[in-house]
């Protein structure tokens, strides 16, 4: 080896070899099919088996849709029309569409209210989800949305959500005035002022129940996919901040804070959600002072939120642990205090790392909202299992109804998943 080198001529490259295209057989559809589908006898066999499988599935599904019946008054009429052609009885969806969406007790002349709230939801979350495409002031709309949505869906006087909003605003101003002197004092001042406003405002709104009022709809009357969406949206948006606080609390140097967070997370995570929901439904009433009527949806929201926040806290803890210690030190060495370094340096990075896990929990949470059907709330699945399948008209139409439920949930969950992947690409800052 070394001999031949010793005799070779000294060499310096002074030109660059020009780029040339690859050989023709190595490009295009043919190349792709050869290398991906038919690269050997075994893969060819698998390809043919897969084609056969797809064909078998389609040969059932296509006629089911193609011969489907969309107009019939009950399942017997459906079967007459189909006459054994193997189509689906989609008439049930057309017949019970509004019940599937709103439940069977929501007053039908008020359907426009939750529909409007649903449309407004997109306007409200857009500036939050796509913060670079919308001006910052639009976040005001996001902040106002919960009160508007409550007013629209539950109805009653506008004073109730207005007082709630005022309480938050007044509390914030009290907090902002004191915070320069002491954080704890400011937090206390904020809470006190908010409670005072809510108490006083409570008398006012109770005194004028008809002021600019929509027809009130009780929580018991909510149902259908609307109920799933209410629970899903509220619980996800509450459990994320709570989960962040729990994750930070678990890392705290203060033993009491840390202890509370650890016990909370481990306890909630170790208990089935169904158990918590039963507690919300039945047991909680024993512990509350007699006479208090704590809204069932609020109780369920509290339980689901606690459940999800425990999971999110652990996901975020993973993100925090994945950050190099240097990031904490870099922030500290510049003189940022704890709150600043968390908000500006640590959490943006930890949350970005945690996105897949958080989305996992959020999607799971949204699907778990169907569990409320077990404590006799008529959400989408509750409606299907209860009033619709139990009726003599549609007894036995399983595939079509449960397929619709699956489709509705899939659309939302797939949307969340796609958004999160887009967000991850947006936040990617290396090697661009």
């Amino acid at each position, binding site marked *: 080896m070394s001999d031949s080198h010793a005799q070779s001529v000294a060499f310096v490259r002074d030109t660059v070899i020009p780029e040339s295209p690859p050989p023709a057989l190595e490009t295009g559809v043919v190349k792709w099919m050869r290398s991906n589908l038919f690269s050997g006898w075994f893969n060819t066999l698998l390809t043919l088996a897969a084609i056969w499988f797809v064909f078998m599935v389609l040969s059932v599904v296509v006629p089911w849709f193609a011969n489907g019946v969309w107009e019939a008054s009950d399942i017997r009429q459906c079967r007459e029309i189909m006459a054994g052609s193997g189509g689906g009885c989609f008439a049930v969806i057309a017949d019970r569409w509004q019940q599937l969406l709103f439940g069977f007790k929501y007053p039908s002349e008020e359907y426009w209210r939750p529909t409007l709230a649903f449309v407004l939801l997109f306007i409200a979350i857009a500036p939050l989800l796509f913060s670079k495409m919308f001006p910052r002031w639009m976040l005001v709309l996001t902040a106002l949305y919960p009160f508007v949505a409550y007013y629209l869906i539950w109805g009653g006087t506008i004073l109730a959500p207005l007082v709630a909003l005022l309480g938050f605003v007044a509390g914030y101003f009290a907090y902002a005035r004191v915070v320069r002197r002491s954080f704890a004092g400011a937090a206390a001042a904020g809470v006190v002022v908010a409670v005072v406003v809510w108490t006083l405002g409570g008398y006012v709104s109770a005194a004028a129940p008809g002021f600019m009022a929509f027809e009130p709809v009780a929580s018991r009357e909510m149902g259908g996919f609307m109920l799933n969406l209410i629970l899903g949206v509220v619980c996800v948006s509450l459990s994320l901040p709570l989960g962040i606080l729990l994750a930070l609390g678990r890392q705290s140097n203060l033993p009491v804070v840390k202890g509370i967070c650890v016990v909370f997370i481990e306890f909630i995570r170790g208990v089935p959600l169904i158990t918590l929901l039963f507690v919300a439904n039945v047991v909680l009433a024993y512990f509350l002072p007699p006479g208090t009527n704590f809204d069932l949806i609020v109780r369920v929201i509290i339980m689901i939120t606690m459940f999800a926040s425990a999971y999110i806290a652990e996901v975020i803890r993973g993100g925090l642990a994945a950050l190099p210690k240097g990031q904490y030190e*870099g922030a500290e*060495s510049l*003189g*940022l*205090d704890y709150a600043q370094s968390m908000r500006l340096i640590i959490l943006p*990075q930890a949350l970005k790392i945690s996105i897949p896990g958080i989305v996992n929990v959020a999607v799971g949470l949204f699907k778990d909202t169907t569990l409320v059907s077990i404590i006799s709330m008529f959400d989408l699945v509750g409606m299907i299992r209860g009033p619709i399948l139990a009726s003599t008209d549609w007894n036995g139409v399983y595939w079509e109804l449960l397929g619709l439920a699956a489709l509705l949930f899939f659309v939302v969950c797939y949307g969340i998943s796609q958004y999160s992947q887009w967000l991850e690409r947006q936040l990617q*800052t290396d090697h661009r």
Partner: protein
Amino acid sequence: MTMTDNAAANPSPAQMKVSDEVAISIENMNKWYGTFHVLRDIDLTVYRGERIVICGPSGSGKSTLIRCINALEEHQAGKITVDGTVLSSDLKNIDKIRSEVGMCFQHFNLFPHLTILENCTLAPIWVRKTPKKEAEETAMHFLNKVKIPEQADKYPGQLSGGQQQRVAIARSLCMQPRIMLFDEPTSALDPEMIKEVLDTMIELAEEGMTMLCVTHEMGFARQVANRVIFMDQGQIVEQNEPEEFFLHPKSDRTKLFLSQILGH
């Protein structure tokens, strides 16, 4: 400009005037990691404008020492005074000292989710409450100084190691610190990049910045430092002017160390 040119153009560091004003004083400081005694009876006074290089074998406590100065590490005994502020467990004191003392790390510790400019303006805006526009002007001034103003809108992940370390220096300078600490700033860099970082540090030294630098760049120590401190096993073993330190080391441990790092 090579280092030798630079040295020729300037008076030898030992002749440079150093004031009598005390920048950092460390008295009888001790630190333990659990039961392990990492720093033992450290006494050190740093005068304003001094450029001190701290060297020593790994595990000798040199990084720990300078990390104690801005309270990234807690010391258990003794007294550290930085710029007249005594370092105690009071968070207000610690934040004050940290905003006066700049620090550069071996692994830069830039914030990867912020652009170079945002990295530089973050602390002035949030800690010093400087208006954003003014902070950006200051940042561009210092990015110019470290010769990478054109990278301002990129992210740290898109820069080379040497550029990242220069950004880290600029980021510290934006807080207009009176003291700079360097914790092995060139140890994670390729040889070609070491020079650009050292040049930046030399420039800083020439402007009279008080600097404490943990490094194994002995050329830098000779050229810039007015004092070299050698540490071993958590103690200051020897300190002297660079010429004396390198030519006539007193202790055997120092001789052994120098023979090993200068021997190749």
